[in-house]
């Protein structure tokens, strides 16, 4: 089980661990965070009308962790009181399994919800992670965004989605 705030793992993701990691620094002031917002991304059993048998995730792990660090820094920049934990699973996942877990802790709920939403939007934009959908009768790599962390329009779009 990952014991870092940010990471990639082949293991099953555990939300309780993320919550403990993100609030672990609260010992001096228990309850500093009045809100803990969580997000779990799970494998859909159906996509565009086809039944999904499994997803196969690959990551360029050192750069993915670097991307998560960039995202955490962007979150700290936009919502200075929010603290983020982000784990992404790779390997083969079946329908219903959790592929990504994000926890944002903050003094008040508004910035927690925003930080959490922003983080998943940025993961989808820049993290070097790929998934292949395997159907009963074929398979295909999903290709989304060109991963460019310096694309300020993409960053702004993620921010607007987080704040609307």
């Amino acid at each position, binding site marked *: 089980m990952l014991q870092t705030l940010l990471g990639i793992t082949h293991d099953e993701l555990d939300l309780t661990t993320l919550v403990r990691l993100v609030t672990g620094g609260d010992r001096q002031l228990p309850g500093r965070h009045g809100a803990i917002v969580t997000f779990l991304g799970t494998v859909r059993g159906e996509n565009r009308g086809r039944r999904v048998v499994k997803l196969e995730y690959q990551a*360029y792990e050192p*750069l993915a962790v670097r991307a998560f660090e960039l995202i955490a820094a962007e979150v700290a920049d936009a919502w200075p009181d929010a603290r983020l934990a982000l784990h992404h699973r790779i390997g083969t996942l079946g329908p219903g399994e959790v592929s990504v877990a994000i926890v944002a802790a903050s003094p008040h709920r508004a910035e927690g919800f925003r930080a959490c939403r922003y983080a998943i939007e940025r993961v989808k934009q820049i993290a*070097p*992670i790929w998934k292949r959908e395997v159907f009963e009768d074929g398979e295909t790599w*999903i290709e989304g965004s060109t*991963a460019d962390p310096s694309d300020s329009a993409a960053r702004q779009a993620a921010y607007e989605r987080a704040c609307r």
Partner: protein
Amino acid sequence: MQITIRLFARLRDIAGTPELERDLPEGATVEMAWQVLAGEFPAMAPYRGSLSAAVNAEYARFTRTLSDQDEVVFLPPVSGG
């Protein structure tokens, strides 16, 4: 000089391997490494417009000059989450 090229997702499938080593002239850029790769595997060529790159686990521009033993990674459009 020798560089390592690592591939993921569709690019890995096209090459049939996750990793290649290639000799490039001194002063070669990320773009030149891509040209070598796309020359060997023409099915990769259409990806150039949607690709990004990394060198030694940091995001990099295609104009970046490479050094001996660098690890270059070409990133097809990502789909995490």
